[in-house]
């Protein structure tokens, strides 16, 4: 478990570096280049900078909640990694069996959805406790956005659950083994698109990043946070991104299954990471391309368009699955 934690935290830190590089390359410029060779030590430099900043707490802020809000955002995001399986077989090492997952809970999908709901509390409390106009506006918008799109994310996942017959992530991945024609993206293409859009909205990424839009709301709900507290929120956002990508991989792209059974000699972990990084690249790619949605456009899209389509998807999947099983 410590191993997973260490790997995850490093991955999050270097994800910030990767984002800046990818965004830079798409904008015809190189990203960070100064700090190490090709800028590789940039996350380290960022970490040192944020740690050495003065810790300012606004005088009228609610100190206890101000302190605990970033933690409420970060901890569920990292906890969600405990139910994500990275590979296929458990392997034994000196008599200790290491599983490719920390816990094979048979309600894995529900655990992840629940934990992301708790993350929304962190945003609301952070904005409220800052006692500042921009923060409270940003927090309200962000919380509304997160809970709206969480609903559509949950609904879109139900189609996959009908097909797989179980909520455990390990079983869902097992059900997609064989070859890429078994992957759930093909029967559930609509749910895949809806899940991806909801994922982008839940993690407050462009084009849904009005709550933290630098040009509109100063920094939204994290205006008053500085130094390490800010970096906790920032890390929480990237951890959420990785969780959404991992869940998308597992539910729709077959997790650690290779696309052709003959390619099974490449370790499953590599396939899993490749797919997760593809989704993360897709997040960055979308960020580099699309402008931001206005808040009312965002809410309208979530409730009037995405939700009915996801319901239709559930109904159609249910009917087809019922008749196919007979």
């Amino acid at each position, binding site marked *: 478990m410590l191993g997973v934690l260490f790997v995850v935290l490093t991955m999050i830190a270097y994800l910030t570096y990767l984002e800046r590089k990818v965004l*830079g390359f*798409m904008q*015809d*410029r*190189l990203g960070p*280049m100064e700090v190490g060779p090709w800028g590789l030590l940039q996350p380290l430099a960022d970490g040192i900078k944020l740690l050495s900043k003065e810790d300012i707490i606004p005088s009228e802020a609610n100190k206890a909640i101000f302190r605990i809000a970033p933690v409420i955002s970060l901890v569920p995001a990292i906890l969600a990694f405990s139910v994500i399986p990275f590979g296929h077989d458990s392997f034994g090492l000196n008599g200790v069996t290491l599983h490719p997952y920390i816990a094979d809970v048979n309600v894995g999908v529900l655990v992840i959805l629940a934990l992301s709901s708790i993350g929304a509390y962190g945003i609301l409390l952070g904005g409220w406790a800052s006692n500042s106009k921009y923060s409270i506006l940003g927090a309200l918008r962000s919380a509304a956005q997160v809970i709206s799109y969480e609903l559509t994310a949950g609904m879109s996942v139900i189609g996959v659950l009908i097909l797989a017959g179980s909520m455990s992530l390990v079983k869902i991945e097992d059900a997609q083994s064989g070859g890429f024609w078994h992957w759930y993206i093909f029967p559930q293409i609509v749910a895949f698109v809806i899940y991806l859009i909801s994922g982008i909205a839940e993690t407050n990424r462009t084009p849904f990043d009005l709550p933290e839009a630098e040009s509109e709301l100063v920094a939204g709900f994290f205006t008053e946070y500085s130094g390490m507290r800010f970096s906790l929120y920032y890390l929480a956002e990237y951890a959420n991104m990785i969780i959404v990508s991992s869940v998308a991989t597992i539910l729709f792209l077959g997790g650690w299954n290779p696309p052709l059974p003959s390619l099974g000699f490449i370790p499953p972990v590599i396939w899993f990471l490749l797919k997760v990084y593809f989704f993360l690249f897709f997040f960055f*790619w*979308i960020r580099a*391309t699309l402008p931001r949605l206005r808040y009312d456009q965002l809410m309208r899209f979530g409730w009037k368009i995405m939700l009915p389509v996801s319901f239709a998807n559930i109904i159609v999947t249910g009917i087809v699955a019922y008749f196919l099983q007979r």
Partner: protein
Amino acid sequence: MLKKFLNTILFSEIGQGLKLTLRHMFLRKVTVQYPKEKLVLADGYRGFIAHRRYDNGVERCVGCDLCEAICPAKAIRVVSDIHPEIPDRRYAKEYTLDFTRCIFCGYCVVACPVNALSMTKEFAHSSFTRNGLIYSKEQMLALGDRAGEESDAYLKVRNMWEAEDSGKEEGRYHFPPISLGG
């Protein structure tokens, strides 16, 4: 109608945007890593201003104050006096150009009748004090000595290099001897 519907569900416009950004990811980048790589500046680049000399080493400036008159930012201050060595000639006893006021427009170079001023390609002259950026005549002459070819090239490109200005001291203006009375 059907086309519009298909465009919506297939996200064609978003796809177009995505294709564009992906294409740009593989194009050559425009970043210049400054201290290690530098951009090539054009000959007419308006950098720091320098004083020039004739080929025999005599400074060109005759202290006429035309540059001080034309400077839009009033960055130049000239105190002129009779040249101690060369007869029938004046020079600038004190010449101060305040580079914190200078807007690098190049009017002083245009105004100078003897091509004493020119602009070099230097720009990286930071200082920790304001006085460090107020250049005296000696400093500007030193700049000119250091960046001689650049200052010549500037005048040539900007059409201020006269054909007969061969660099000889007597080439440009020949002051006839003045006799007062008698």
